[in-house]
């Protein structure tokens, strides 16, 4: 017979010493310092300090609670007498989470710093590196890339129709291009193609290639409008934005494919959205740069900026009918801002972009 005594209450448990896989039936005593584990002969085989004790597994349902010891890797105590648990919960301060040590704090600080550095590099560093890197790419390398880009775009949009090639229209387009490039310096031999699709858009590809969609020429009310858009795309080309954009998107897709862990379907969708958000701020910057370049070119060539301004006005009317994306979602600056910028730099036309005959020929380029 043993007398129940407050200081010497004993609790049945199983004990693993962390040295071997043997399981020992033990009695555990609790005191101010922690738990004392005693073997069948009454000798104390192990002492666990309260602050070292933690749950080996999060407790759940009626599973026996298993304790481990921070200071004794591998040692485990499986509590069989549930009366011990309230005492452990009251005394052990770090059952579920580790104490905050200086080392842990530094680890978290270092991780946050590393994560911030990665994000900063991709948001600011990558565009910063892409600019000089793009300047290093020989133009001859870009040419086949530009060629295949233009072909792919034509396949995607023109539904089997060939690039528009009416000779008079092409001559008009060429004379317009020459007028604009005459006042700018570029190593590119710029070539403009018209894709036979009803889309109001134009874009610059690597290798000095520019694509204008037929829809843009159809909707344009004057040659000056087409000249404005063309000047914008030429400004992209001169600043080598297509190549920079390529470097940027390769960088982001590399980061995101590693970040989201493989390329499963859901990850791809999320990654695309994230990449879009991340790169759109940068492309907005490039667009503004191209607007500025276009204004300078239009001014110097004497064509004037009224056409470009008019184009953006009509773009605004188009946008009114459709959904308007907030600026942070859009890859282009808000049209209002662009119009303001152009009007602040407005210059009077001195020469028309094209003669009336040339303008008629350009409108008929896809025939």
């Amino acid at each position, binding site marked *: 017979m043993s007398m129940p005594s407050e200081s010497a209450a004993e609790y049945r448990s199983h004990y693993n010493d962390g040295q*071997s896989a*043997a*399981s020992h039936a033990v009695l555990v005593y609790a005191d101010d310092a922690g738990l004392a584990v005693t073997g069948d002969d009454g000798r104390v085989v192990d002492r666990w300090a309260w602050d070292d004790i933690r749950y080996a597994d*999060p407790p759940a349902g009626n599973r026996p609670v298993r304790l481990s010891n921070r200071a004794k890797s591998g040692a485990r105590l499986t509590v069989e007498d549930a009366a011990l648990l309230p005492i452990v919960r009251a005394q052990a301060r770090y059952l579920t989470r580790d104490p905050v040590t200086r080392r842990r704090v530094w680890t978290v600080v270092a991780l946050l710093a590393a994560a911030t550095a990665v994000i900063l590099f991709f948001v600011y560093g990558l565009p910063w590196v892409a600019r000089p890197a793009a300047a290093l790419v020989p133009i001859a390398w870009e040419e*086949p890339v530009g060629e295949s880009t233009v072909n792919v775009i034509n396949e995607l949009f023109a539904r089997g129709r060939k690039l528009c090639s009416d000779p008079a229209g092409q001559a008009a387009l060429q004379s317009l291009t020459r007028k604009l490039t005459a006042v700018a310096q570029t190593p590119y031999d710029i070539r403009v193609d018209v894709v036979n699709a009803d889309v109001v858009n134009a874009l610059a590809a690597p290798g000095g290639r520019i694509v204008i969609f037929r829809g843009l020429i159809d909707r344009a009310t004057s040659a000056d409008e087409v000249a404005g858009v063309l000047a914008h795309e030429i400004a992209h080309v001169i600043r080598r934005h297509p190549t920079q954009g390529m470097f940027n998107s390769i960088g982001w897709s590399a980061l995101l494919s590693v970040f989201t862990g493989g390329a499963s379907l859901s990850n791809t*969708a999320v990654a695309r959205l994230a990449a879009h958000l991340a790169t759109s701020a940068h492309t907005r910057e490039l667009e503004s740069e191209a607007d500025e370049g276009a204004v300078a070119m239009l001014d110097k060539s004497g064509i004037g900026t009224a056409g470009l301004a008019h184009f953006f006005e009509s773009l605004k009317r188009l946008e009114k009918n459709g959904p308007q994306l907030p600026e942070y979602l859009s890859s282009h600056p808000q049209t209002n801002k662009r119009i303001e910028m152009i009007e602040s730099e407005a210059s009077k036309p001195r020469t028309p972009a094209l003669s009336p005959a040339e303008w008629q020929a350009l409108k008929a380029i896809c025939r």
Partner: protein
Amino acid sequence: MNEPLDQKIRHRNAVARAHVQVSRGQTSMLMVKEAPAYSGRASEIFPIALTNLILTFLTVGIYRFWAKTRIRRYFISRVSFLGDPLEYSGTGMELFIGFLIVLAVLVPLFIVTGILRYFLERPGAETTTVAIFQAGYFLALYFLYHVAVYRAQRYRLSRTSWRGIRGGQVGSAMLYAVCAIGLGVLTVATAGLAYPVMRRFLVRYRINHLAFGTETLQLECGVGRLLAGWMVPWLFFAAILGYVGYSLAQKDWSVIKNAAPDMVGAVFISMFTTKVVIAMAILPFGFLLLIWYRVFEIRQWINHSRFGELAFASRLRALQVMFPYLAYWFLATVASGLVIAGSILLMRKLGGADFLFRFGAFSGLYFVAVFWVIAGILRPMILTDWLIDVFCRTLTIQGRFSPDTLFQNQLAIPRSGEGLADAFDVDAF
């Protein structure tokens, strides 16, 4: 590098045996014949899966390291042997640090190769240069993939314990990956015939270097039975692909070149006779044979493995593996369909259905997101739970076992884990 496990074990055994004899005078020997017990419950998995999903989404994927750790800890702790549960002590932070290390290596690699591919892999490029580049790129990824598999196993084993005794893995991940490349080339060169040879080597390398405490597993498995089993799916695919290839090769393909542009499609389709189409239609059933072979393989590995004086026997059947997958896919599809249909009806009532359809890309994203959420919750609740359960129920561990003389191993414990495996999405568990 690790010093040979044998030496370590021998030394450790000697020290520990002396220790035991001093303290107890005798060791207990158990006669074991039982299956590991699995006690997972869907109702306990659901809250873990749900919170994991929500937090992973809110943190743009960063939480997944902690999510993986939680779900692993749950499943591993629900498997017990001789009355004591297994325990997983890895942390999300370890996985996250491993990930950051790999990020620093892989992202620059992907950027450089991405730029090279951009300029190299275009129409009209020099085909030999492109071929050499692509082969090199593919081999590098294949190599890293196998390194990832091996390292991930080492990390997980070092964090898994039973009665406080840790698992571990010796051997070299690099050597393993080099062998994997060599055997992969052999498999391709033999049109897949040598596949079991590769599998046997790689699985044996992983299992024979797998330690639990001071003891390693031993897998002795002849290649004959594996080859015989592999013949079932191999012959099926060889027969059908051979027939289709032979029939198509008999046709006069120059007809297509000379056909009018708008007739090319029709001429192309006319090449496929009814028999060829039927042959191609039954091709997907070959995947059931592949599952059967995988399960056959698993039985071979288990039945020919020993751990000390313990032997293993598995009665796992292919159908027992196929059913959970079917149930999971069926339920995930039906549940997503119901949720999507319900939300469209609701939006129509509220007058917003056209919003969903006007933004084609966004509605697609919405459908993907619904399936992702539902599959993410159902997968551990149905698939993982069921597979672990059936695996444990069909497994028998039998033989003499002395827990007193199974000692803690002193293998180096990796400090961070699985970065590479994570980057390659090696496993979804």
